[in-house]
């Protein structure tokens, strides 16, 4: 453990991280948001899921520094009279959860398929890559609209809210796996020509072992970089779907559905219901993206400045 820590602090990644202010700031931002999101029940002033906190009389209270604002609601309330800050923190938790799990699903599918098609090649490769092309030619919005329409018809709009989280994870996960598959396949094609793979074959290892233990770890840096970008993308996709009313219901809003619910009130002057979740979404996605950029630069041997 101590050894590994020392190895990490001696690494080039850590060295370049310490010298990159943007990376440090975005990492700090991401960390704060992440911690806030997962400590939501302890941090946020109110529980937005508790029906007792819905108070129509207090609806559309402006933020505390504006006329009519109260100390009670720092960032004002939404159309249901829930504290906006609490709702945002809970919403961010949902957004991040969906983002991370959707990326895990994508990564799982993409890595398995990419490894297999890159390593074995031939007909299997053509089959999977054509499948990826087909998948990419469907807009994920179209797929989501289609599936959610079928689901809502099948189990009812009310119960749809209960399965909204896994639904979003699966839709976003399925829509984006070709990104992973292509990246992994490309690195596998480059790696499998190297002599250590030949040596592994000579040593009598089976294909499974060569694929998973020898080639995959050597493809990790592009996968890592892609993952950060994909988390940001997945959070945005989730927001987009929820904004269109295909995602999280208003009772358990994510950032996207919050933006959507506030949208109806934006011209009546209640801009904060849309603006604050919007800003939070931008900051979250930006922090993740900047981290991804940093990782890409730090892990790319061609840009090695050390």
């Amino acid at each position, binding site marked *: 453990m101590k050894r590994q820590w020392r190895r990490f602090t001696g690494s080039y990644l850590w060295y370049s991280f310490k010298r990159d202010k943007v990376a440090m700031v975005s990492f700090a931002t991401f960390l704060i948001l992440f911690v806030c999101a997962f400590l939501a029940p302890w941090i946020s002033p109110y529980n937005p899921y508790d029906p007792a906190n819905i108070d129509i009389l207090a609806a559309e209270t402006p933020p505390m520094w504006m006329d009519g604002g109260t100390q009670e609601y720092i960032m004002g309330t939404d159309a249901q009279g829930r504290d906006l800050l609490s709702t945002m923190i809970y919403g961010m938790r949902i957004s991040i959860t969906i983002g991370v799990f959707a990326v895990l699903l994508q990564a799982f599918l993409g890595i398995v398929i990419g490894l297999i098609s890159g390593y074995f090649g031939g007909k299997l490769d053509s089959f999977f890559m054509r499948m990826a092309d087909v998948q990419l030619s469907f807009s994920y919005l179209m797929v989501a609209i289609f599936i959610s329409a079928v689901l809502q018809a099948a189990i009812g709009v009310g119960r749809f809210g209960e399965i909204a989280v896994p639904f979003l994870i699966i839709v976003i996960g399925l829509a984006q796996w070709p990104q992973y598959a292509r990246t992994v396949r490309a690195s596998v094609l480059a790696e499998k020509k*190297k*002599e*250590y793979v*030949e*040596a*592994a*074959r*000579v*040593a*009598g*290892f*089976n294909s499974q*072992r060569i694929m998973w*233990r*020898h080639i995959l*770890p*050597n493809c*990790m840096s592009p996968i890592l970089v892609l993952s950060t970008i994909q988390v940001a993308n997945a959070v945005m996709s989730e927001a987009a779907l929820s904004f269109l009313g295909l995602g999280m219901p208003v009772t358990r809003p994510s950032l996207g559905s919050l933006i959507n619910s506030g949208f109806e009130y934006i011209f009546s002057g209640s801009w904060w219901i849309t603006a604050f979740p919007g800003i939070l979404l931008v900051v979250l996605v930006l922090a993740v993206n900047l981290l991804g950029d940093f990782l890409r630069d730090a892990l790319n041997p061609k840009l090695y400045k050390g």
Partner: protein
Amino acid sequence: MAALLEVKDLVVNFALRGGELTALNGISFSLNQGERLGLVGESGAGKSVAGFSIINLISKPGYIAGGRVLFQGREISVLPFAQLRGIRGNLITMVFQDPMMTLNPVLTVGTQMIETLQAHQRISDRDAADIAVDKLRQVHIPSPERRLEQYPHEFSGGMRQRIIIAIALLNNPQLIIADEPTTALDVTIQAEIMDLFVELCNQQEMGLILITHDLAVVYETTEKIAVMYAGQIVEQGPTEEVVSSPMHPYTQGLIAALPQGDQRGTRLNQIPGTMPTLTSIPAGCSFHPRCSQAREICSRQTPALKPGQARERLVACHMLHQ
């Protein structure tokens, strides 16, 4: 002594779009237990293909088109894949040219060694690590226990080649195929590595096939030599004799091309021309366009590999069999 490895009339073809290419055209040789054989030739002569075909690991589109490879009496080219895997890395191992590339950069040396052991034996991590330390010590790596936890990039080129040799030794193989093991290393380390090979072969009665273009290395290390040219063996015999009195014009040319002490200040000898590519191998003796002694018959008829003066010497040249 029973033959450890027997290669008989081995033909390896590459199925390309333009048709079949013959990379190995009927080569035969044999190796006894604990014997060391050098395969020499220019680049593209088919040395490495010969090495890979022994463990039936020729990369596509190459395949064994004819002939037999018998290892301890078992025919390698017809063995099912599972049994073949039991031989690879276990009874026959290979050492490659570039030690910088042959180790997996993201796994520690220890992991790679333990893994190689566990691929062929049921053995606990701790026992495997003990064997690994033992083998590292055998190839003269100082403080092997500490070295096990290091990654390949923490070693120098010579050290890495030692580690690769240690990995090759892990399962106590009967035969090591070394494909230009010292080409990427500098001369002093080259000598050390070759001495190590000889030492290990003597200790463990291990066969060695040394694939190289360096006659000097072969001369110092091996007992038998096979000179290859354009996918064929043109001369074969005990190393001492072949090097001191080469019979085939190609071997003569190779040896004359070595720097010699008494020629100080003059140009080195060379064989005119280059080796034909596999697509354009000349008819008859494939060496005749470059041969100074070529006669009319050489361009018509392919010479067979026949015994020379001594029984163990085999030469493929018309001039010697008239």
